[in-house]
């Protein structure tokens, strides 16, 4: 059978891509991320087009606070790092290490999400409701969509951690962990762009 892998000498060095199913998942997920990129690009374009449209409501300069965004960025970037390290552990067949690193990833992501919710609540207190202006709508939609991705990623990784907490690395779950970590990186990359386009340009007034 084409999909079978010789496991007598332990896991192969790339357990996530050594079966046909794994290879398909790997490629399919990359393509999915391509589509996601375009979807986010559309929301970015919308935001760029509408960010001056404050309609008398609060503007970016008045609202954004760099320290908060900096902390959020650091949390998310670090979580991306821990998920890479988790994948290294997976390739070395060090299951325990991988699990711990994945848990750290989830905790960091939760921290990020907490700060984001706090941020949104703050802005609403400052008078930036969802319906206040086109700037408000496009800001909340873009950043909120990213937040929804973070939430989905957290649920996904948590599910995998719980489901496979005792199973060790197998050729079935390796692609699943790998794809989830790809997704997590993607979320991180999108955040880098949000940080630049939304926050830095918002404060810098470019």
């Amino acid at each position, binding site marked *: *059978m*084409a*999909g079978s892998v010789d496991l007598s000498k332990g896991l192969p060095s790339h357990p996530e891509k050594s079966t*046909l199913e794994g*290879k*398909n998942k790997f*490629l*399919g997920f990359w*393509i*999915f991320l*391509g*589509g*996601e990129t*375009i*979807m986010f*690009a*559309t*929301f970015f*374009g*919308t935001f760029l*087009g*509408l960010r*001056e*449209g*404050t*309609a008398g409501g609060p503007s970016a300069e008045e609202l954004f606070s760099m320290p908060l965004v900096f902390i959020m960025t650091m949390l998310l970037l670090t979580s991306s790092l821990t998920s890479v390290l988790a994948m290294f552990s997976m390739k070395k067949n060090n299951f325990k290490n991988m699990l711990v690193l994945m848990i750290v990833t989830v905790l960091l992501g939760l921290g990020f999400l907490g700060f984001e919710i706090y941020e949104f609540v703050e802005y609403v207190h400052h008078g930036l409701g*969802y*319906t*206040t*202006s*086109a*700037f*408000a*709508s*496009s800001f909340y*939609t873009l950043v909120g969509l990213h937040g929804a991705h973070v939430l989905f990623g957290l649920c*996904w990784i948590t*599910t*995998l951690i719980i*489901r496979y907490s005792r199973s060790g690395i197998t050729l*079935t779950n390796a692609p*699943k962990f790998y794809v989830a970590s790809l997704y997590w990186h993607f979320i991180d990359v999108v955040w880098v762009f949000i940080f630049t386009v939304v926050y830095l340009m918002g404060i810098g007034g470019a």
Partner: protein
Amino acid sequence: MATATATKDKSVLWDWLTTVDHKKLAVLYLIAGTLFFVKAGMMALFMRIQLMSAENDFLTGQTFNELITMHGTIMLFLAATPLIFAFMNFVIPLQIGARDVAFPFVNALGFWIFFFGGLLLSVSWFFGGGPDAGWTAYVPLSSGEYADLGLDFYVLGLQVSGIGTLVSAINFIVTIINMRAPGMTMMRMPLFCWTGLVVSILIVFAFTPLAAGLALLMLDRIFGGQFFIPDMGGNAVLWQHIFWIFGHPEVYILVLPAFGIISEVIPAFSRKRLFGYTAMVFATLVIAFLGFMVWVHHMFTVGLGPITNSVFAIATMGIAVPTGIKIFNWLFTMWGGKITFNTAMLCASSFVPTFVLGGVTGVMLAMVPVDYLYHDTYFVVAHFHYIIIGGIVLGLLAGTYYWYPKMFGHKLNEKLGILMFWLFYIGFHMTFFIQHILGLIGMPRRVYTYLEGQGMETMNLVSSIGSFVMGAAILVLVINVVYSAFNSERITVNDPWDARTLEWSTPTPIPEYNFAQTPQVRSLDPWFYEKVHGDGTMKPAEPMTDIHMPNGSILPFVIGLGLFTWGFGMVMMNMENTIVPPFLVIGTGVILTFGSMLIRSIKEDHGYHIPLEQVKKIEKEVS
């Protein structure tokens, strides 16, 4: 479809609801697509009755607007796309020598999500009327201020069905890249696989902006967003950009597979290999690339400035070059061939001149200064119907007659087929050719009536009569399907057309695993190569062993149902008297959707194996 199956203990209904077999899903796509096609076709006939005479009052303006919107929306999203997916599903795995698509589960998921999305759009009729802002749903016409509940169904129905289309496209890309049989290099792939691949890539990059745009419109309408409200800092032209960034590639999404079908049918019935295969592949890629660079030609009259308009005009005219390459290659394929003019070939060969007509008016429309005259007239309607009917529908008809024996085990009746073709062809030109002239004398599109004495009565009457002839052709096709199902001779050979590509090397009916042994491909047109240079059978690339198959699953159906419920709940937020609170419905939908995904993630499903003896038994039965 009598495919031999190893799981005979399921009831028929349960089997079809849970199937992940690409051949059965193709049939489901075919049925769903045809139903939507007939529905939208009926709407067109109603509109033509209304326009048959001046100041007619068969329909009110409101109903006409709803019909015009639903006709366009259904034809593009719920008829043409699934019909194309039907053929892609059925043919691509067979043509590349694969046992199934890369993700059979996702394949079923794509179908059910598309289906429930279409259902969500269609139930709008029972809740105060369909959407009425045109299939392009321009704001502010589609905003909460001017459009009713129908638009909410439009936004959410398309959102849901778009997800289905997107996941199917990802599935096709991975299938074509990863699942090809040994020896089936990219440049040995049949052109239908190439166009399938390119189209799937287009879908990934075009349906996602649409999803984003629809989300914006939904947020505006249901949650009070301000994206398109100029007073609040929004921008109405933004919608047009997003819509057409999707909308123009959508044209190529639909027409490229039709090109692919034509490129299969013409060589098969000209008894020659496709002329200029490499150029055809290259032209497909160029069309796909340029397809993303021309969306502004739908917006010339918006006033984006002469530089922008010129750049997009030139890019648009540029598309004529690769398309011209294709046209000439089809002509040269037929040139000197031993041509059989059966129904499939009649549809395929008549596609060529008809499509050229649509292409020529396309180049005319690309000229910005005159576009100011053509814009929003019947000239545009005539142009895109020449592309869509003269291109896509003729291609689909050709594909139907060509692959029907492989799909259903018998041919469609030729006499009825030829009758259908001539009715359709004459009716089509009668309906739409005259609309060019109507447009040139100034009849605007999307109007529900016109005044007497402006010289439009006769031409509209002719157009309406033509549309009924076309309707009669489709009726003949339906009669043909039923008639042939009872009276047509069953096909017992692999290859009733003496064709060229790998799908004809499989036995009819096809076993659920397609190929008992994965074939070794030695050339372009591999099946023809073996017939000429080999012993007329495909060389196996692997020994006969147990065959691994995926399990069926009801989860795709449940996820589709969940998204339907979720979407319906969102629409309920704009309803006045809801019996149950909307959030309960939304919650149910979310739980169904994500709950099913959770189950799918937690439950490891390794499929099953068809044991070797069983495979040998099935092979003996079918050969």
